[in-house]
């Protein structure tokens, strides 16, 4: 099977003024099959989020290659990378990543707005997406009126609205209580399973990682042997 994501020797190095450079991602080899749920585990500072950024095309590898949906990320222009994210990926953040000046519905509709969908179409689909995550009728709600769990569900709805092939979730439940965390993970897992989308979950929580089809572990920018073997 052709992998949806393929990293070969992917490396990301940060140069800090007055200090030695740091390899946040060090020669990582990773492939993810379509529909596969992969959890990337590791302590803080191990390079999990940096790796996720490379997969999303938000950041670029200094060495090796990252291929997503057959596209070598390094060969894409910034605009092409943005379009790939918009059309094929859904991203969920620990800090929700919502735009405070927009309503819940408008936040969910943002990927469609960026794709040029009409106001009616995008708000209609946003309402449906909110219903799917259990926030029926929350379209016009202001972000600062929502609880943490509700905010993250808005974030999940936004990630799913364009029916992505790849869902990237960076510590999506790190700020939530157990109940809300469980609900959000349920939503992501269900969406992945139902839509056939691959799900990459970055977490330091073993319980969350346990839900994945495959768990990989990172330390000091590298995938550890036990992680690769899982």
């Amino acid at each position: 099977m052709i992998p949806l994501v393929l990293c070969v020797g992917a490396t990301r190095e940060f140069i800090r003024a007055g200090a030695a450079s740091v390899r946040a991602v060090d020669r990582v080899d990773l492939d993810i099959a379509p529909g596969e749920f992969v959890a990337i585990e590791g302590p803080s500072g191990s390079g999990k989020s940096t790796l996720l950024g490379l997969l999303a095309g938000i950041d670029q590898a200094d060495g090796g290659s990252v291929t997503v949906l057959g596209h070598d990320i390094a060969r894409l222009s910034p605009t092409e990378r943005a379009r790939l994210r918009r059309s094929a990926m859904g991203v969920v953040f620990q800090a929700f990543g919502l735009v405070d000046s927009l309503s819940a519905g408008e936040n969910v509709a943002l990927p469609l707005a960026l794709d040029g969908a009409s106001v009616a179409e995008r708000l209609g689909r946003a309402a449906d997406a909110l219903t799917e995550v259990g926030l029926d009728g929350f379209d016009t709600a202001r972000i600062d009126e929502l609880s943490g769990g509700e905010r993250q569900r808005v974030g999940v709805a936004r990630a799913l609205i364009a029916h992505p092939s790849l869902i990237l979730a960076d510590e999506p439940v790190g700020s939530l209580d157990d109940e809300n965390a469980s609900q959000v993970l349920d939503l992501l897992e269900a969406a992945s399973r139902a839509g056939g989308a691959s799900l990459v979950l970055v977490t330091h929580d073993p319980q969350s990682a346990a839900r994945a089809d495959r768990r990989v572990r990172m330390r000091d920018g590298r995938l550890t042997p036990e992680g690769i073997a899982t």
Partner: protein
Amino acid sequence: MNIGVHIWQLMNRERRRTLAAAAGVAIAAALMMSVVLFGSASGTTVTRRALADLPVDGQAILAPGADSAAATALLVADPTVRSTQPFDVVHFDGATLSKAGSATQTSSGVLVGVGPGFQDSTGLFSLSAGRIVPGQIVVSRDLATNLGLTPGDSARFLLAGGQSADLVVSGIVDITGADLILGPVDEAHRAIAANPPVNVAVTDLTTLAKLAGQIPAGAVASDPAAGANTGNSASPVLAPEPAVLHEILLRYDDAQLPGNPGDAKVWLDGVRRRIERVGAGTITIADDASASLEPVAADLAWGQVLFVFLALPGVALALALSRFAAESSAEATRGYASLLRARGASQRQLVSLFLGTTTLTAVLGAVIGAIVGTGLAFLVFGSELGAANPLVTILGGFALTVLLTTLLATLAAAQPLRDQLRAELVSGRQELGRLRPPLWQRLYLDLLALVAAGAVFWLVGGSGVHPVLNAEGNPTVTLALTSFVAPFLLWIGGTLFLLRLTVRLLSRGPLTPLLERLFGPGGDVAGRSLVSRAGAASRAIVLLALAVSFATSTLTFEATYRQQQRVDAGLTLGADLKAVPTTVVDASAAATVTGPGVTVASPFVDRVVYVGSEAQDLLAIDPTTLPHVATLSDSFFQGTTAVGAMGALASQPDAIFVSAETAKDYSIVPGDRIRIRIPDAHGQLREVDFHMAGVALEFPTAPKDAFLVANLDYVARQTGDPAISFVLAASSGDPSAASLGQRLGSGWTVSDLGSVTARLANSVTSVDLGALVTLDVGFAILIASVGVALFLLAGLSERKRELATLAAIGADPAQLGALVAAETTVVGTAGTAAGILTGGLVGVTLLGILAGVFDPPADVPNVPVAAVVAVILAVIVGLLLANVVATRTMRRIDVLAALRER
């Protein structure tokens, strides 16, 4: 907690915030410093202006019997004296003329004796008619009119002591500008503004010495044209002046004169005391220069208020910029305050820390700004500044600027700082104090100020400044502070009203659909974002509007000021250019003047003629070409238009327009025949008949009351004298006396509007506002650009996480750029449009300040469209730069790091 260390750490930690706030204060300080220095430099200008038209700086009056040569040597030895001219005066008690069996007589006056170089040295006593003949006299127009004198007549003068002298008249002399040396010389007479004599005869020193010899020693003038002439019964009884006065007129070395009128007066006083001490018992000085500077100090104060007023909005704007910078860093301040509080800092310590940081930042900005302002001042008007005792001025200005801007900037930043600390204390991220409108909105102070501005403009409009003549006959102005009230209130009210309006409009989000249509998805996000940031966006719009308004109103004021200067000059010079031949030429010489740079030229005759016994100016013109070179207004004529008047002179060669005074004195009406005596080429008077065509109230080159306007060709034919006085010309571009003079060669003397403008200007209007306006407009553009850049950058800083989110979910660089561009467009368009509108209104109210300074006053403001468009283009360039800076900053955002921020 060591506050000093923390202040330093905070400034370092928030380096960008510190620099932004300091930049705002620096702009304010630079503007203030340059205005202070402009005020000093303008002191030099008005001092030079006040002394430029003085024929002499001082009069050394010799004691009876004093040796004139020894006194001259003593005066020349003084390092401040540049040149001397002997000047003797003999008062006469009356004069008579017996001619053709009838006798006329007039009252007292003066006979003056001058040396051969007197006219060249002082510019006084230019010959209007006839010629100068040794042993004979040339008489003032009043004396000629009073006695009915014409060249060739012999007048008898009754001298003090009972002797009389018969003197032959060889010409008419213009005594304009000579009041100072013809009037009384003692302080007491000058103090009551005694009138100078109008019956004046000028002769050579030798002839006058003979007359003086006939007067007994100690004789006094019977009526020295003083005291009795004032018409003030409460005036003290003054001792009469001596009948004979020997004077030496003095010119000082201008280069040694301090620029400030006050300092110049002190310097002149010192010179007077020194000369009087050295020549004790021989010389007394009448300090004419010092007397002329008397009203200048007051004028300068008026001017400096005007300069400060013109620049005040700029200073206020720059301080607003500083405050804006403080507000822009609210998030950072709150964050740092939370950190320190967590480490145990008390509220008092926090206040001390942030206030100390703000003050230190303000001092830093003020010092940098004052240095920059000094540099700019030397760059733009350094030559005037050099004479104004620059070191003292700069040090004083520096201290004032740094103190004032630091104080104002600290006060301006104090409130947002307090809000930030309070907000941090209560909820961390909620903006307090925004929940209910500010006090001025609740009290409707904006609307009240606008209504008051309208009322004040209506009540006192046009009465701001009044020109008056001082005792020495110099034009001066008096200040009515009310003239500043209307523009000030309009500015304040307009600003606040604009703020109210934009907040209300933006918070309703009407722009979102339009922005989405124009800028795509980025525009949609920008529109929605503007709703939530309505307060900050409104402040940016108002800042930009005020900067544009400041530039527009200042430019309009200056253009109107310059226009009125030229209108004044145009009326006096007659046209763009005036070429006076140094030899006798006829009307065909006008063709010589026409050529490159000159489109039309018109010959002109200005000759002294006699209506009855009264000497008047006859202006003989070419009615076909004159309307193309001179501005002829319908208001110049009574009962006809300018075109009608020129048509009458062209179709009826013997037509003549007379002054209203002449028509009244001689009871003549249009159609009546008038016989006028006009000198021919040999100076003989010939009687020429005219028909009155109408009344002329004003005419180019003829600011005087009594004059006549006739057809040049007719006058030449009737007198057999084709000679013209000068040629008036219209230029195709900027009139330049130098270029025309170069083309015409040494046979002509050419003057242009620029030189006349400078000569006519009174003390305040002599100041060239161009330099100040250049500075003001430059700062306005800078403030507009920096203000918008700050708004955009603050927006980016506040919304870093939002922008990172947009990038992460697939917004491409163009869409993110469109977001910034949409915000720039909204702020730029609204700010510029509102700025032009309020600038226009403030410009109109500023006209009130000009009313009375110029005659005629400006009816409508002169909007310099090209300059305003240039300012708008400069602002647009500034906005584009701000946009580029913001876009580049946005692209440098670390998306992953921003997304991890909470």
